[in-house]
């Protein structure tokens, strides 16, 4: 293992350059921010409208379902801030630009996530503010344990999100076009993380727990935090909420090993 110095230096340089472009792309920044707010605002409005019709969903109040959303947003915006550019991999490969990452002395995945671009932590900040409001709605009782579980859910959840996106992007080493697959996985994630897992059938529950473990991003930690053990016919072990960092680490490791195989399979382009 070579020295880590170039990694943190590059990473610091990457953030410096991101902020350098902020001034130049101010308009773009605001458009993104407004887009993000509208997107999440409408998702939250949908939840609110749905909850108006079914005031209690398997024992979850509307505040608690919104909390579920806030927790998911926290993790996914952390993933979006740190690892957003992994989604560019298929495009880099197809356009022949990926070769460059393979001839430099740092891990190509690290280079991908530290590609200077228009990446700012704006969404993470908004998501944090939103979470701060929502935790009041559900009267979260803060203890060291609660804070630890939340941190684990946020970071571990970001890694779950990242791992799934990395695995999908890695397929690009074998398959030229995978826009459809990416779209399917993304909707699976955004649609099924909105409501308590207990309202879905067994196939969905299994898929979201053990294949694409999005339930560990928000549902299991929220169940633990809000003491929701029995939900209709579905019983949730409160320990599951603590497993998010472990699941994140496992899935990320698997995705990374898959990625390494992908690198050796890289075929580049003809010109």
């Amino acid at each position, binding site marked *: 293992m070579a020295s880590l110095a170039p990694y943190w230096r590059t990473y610091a340089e990457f953030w410096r350059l991101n902020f350098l472009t902020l001034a130049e792309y101010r308009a773009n920044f605001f458009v993104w921010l407004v887009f993000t707010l509208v997107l999440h605002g409408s998702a939250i409005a949908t939840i609110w409208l749905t909850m108006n019709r079914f005031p209690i969903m398997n024992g979850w109040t509307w505040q608690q379902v919104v909390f579920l959303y806030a927790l998911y947003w926290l993790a996914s915006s952390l993933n979006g801030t740190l690892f957003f550019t992994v989604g560019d991999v298929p495009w880099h490969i197809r356009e022949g630009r990926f070769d460059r990452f*393979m*001839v430099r*002395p740092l891990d190509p995945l690290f280079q991908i996530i530290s590609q*200077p671009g228009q990446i700012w932590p704006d969404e993470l900040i908004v998501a944090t503010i939103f979470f701060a409001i929502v935790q009041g709605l559900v009267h979260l009782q803060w203890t060291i344990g609660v804070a630890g579980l939340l941190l684990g859910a946020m970071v571990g959840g970001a890694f779950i999100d990242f791992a799934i996106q990395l695995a999908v992007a890695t397929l690009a080493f074998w398959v030229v076009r995978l826009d459809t697959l990416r779209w399917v996985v993304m909707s699976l994630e955004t649609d099924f993380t909105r409501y308590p897992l207990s309202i879905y059938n067994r196939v969905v529950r299994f898929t979201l727990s053990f294949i694409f473990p999005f339930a560990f991003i928000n549902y299991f930690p929220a169940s633990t935090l809000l003491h929701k053990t029995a939900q209709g016919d579905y019983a949730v072990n409160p320990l599951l909420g603590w497993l998010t960092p472990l699941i994140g680490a496992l899935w990320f490791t698997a995705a990374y090993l898959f990625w390494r195989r992908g690198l050796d399979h890289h075929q*580049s382009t003809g010109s």
Partner: protein
Amino acid sequence: MIISADRLTKQFRTLRRKEGPLGAIATLFSRDYEIKDAVRDVSFKLDAGELVGYIGPNGAGKSTTIKMLTGILVPTSGTCTVDGIVPWADRQANGRQIGVVFGQRTQLYWDLPLIESFQLLRAIYNVPAATYERNLREFTELLGLDEFIRTPVRQLSLGQRMRGDFAAAMMHEPKVVFLDEPTIGLDVVAKENIRQFIARVNRDRGTTFILTTHDLADIEKLCARIILIDHGRKLYDGSVETIKGRYGRNRTLTADLNCENCDDVRITVPGANVVSREGPRIVIEFDRDAVRADELVVKLAQHYELRDVTIAEPPLEAIIRDIYQHGLGDGSVAARDGLLVTADVETVS
């Protein structure tokens, strides 16, 4: 010896597309692959400090070879080492010691001023501050970067961008530099600037270069040695002088005669032919080995008054074009002369 390639082979496997109305679906489930031999059994050795031209027609396998030497592609069979490292087995160690310029594709950051790309590369390659400062100063001077170093890369002209790319590839002082068509699309002045830069770095720092190009003037100005490949196979590996000596045996003699009926001028020397005439100017092509130039001139002078005479050897371009078109098959002059270099005949290391 700094680079050794041993029977490098790369096959690309592409799905054969199915025809017909359900072609796309059929292709999806098809196992019908087409195998393309991009590079086959290519071996060579390079000494540190060499500057070698790697040439061949379009699709010959040049870029594919470079990609194996730089660790981008894993070969189907065969192996190679770059200063003792197998590139694809340890990409990061290899990355530290090589520099790469792809003429078609920049490594600079589009939205950032040139200098910021250098800063980022400095961090990526962990270049010590003093080394970075010294190289930046030297490259800025040699490549004239100061006019545009603060300009965002997307606003640079192709020539400016290429100069920036060269500096970027050399900032960490690589031992070996791979150049894949580095002068493509440049004007004569920019080409000359780049060539001088390569020659200078090669001379002053002993950096080894492998260069692919379709502009043979690059080779004539820079390389003592060429490796020529076609259809993935190595055809020739040796000095530029030798290939010129063996293949470029034709000479052209251009003479301005003092003649009245210039159209009647005849040459009766066997092996020499008049290829064009234009007023008093006559151009004769002859085989250097069959005809002695002095005899030809004497013969001409016996019959006509000579105002001006020049004898030229063919440019490398014409020689290579001839090889691309007619190959070096077994019946060729090259094979008869024992010039066809096979994998086991190598330069000393």
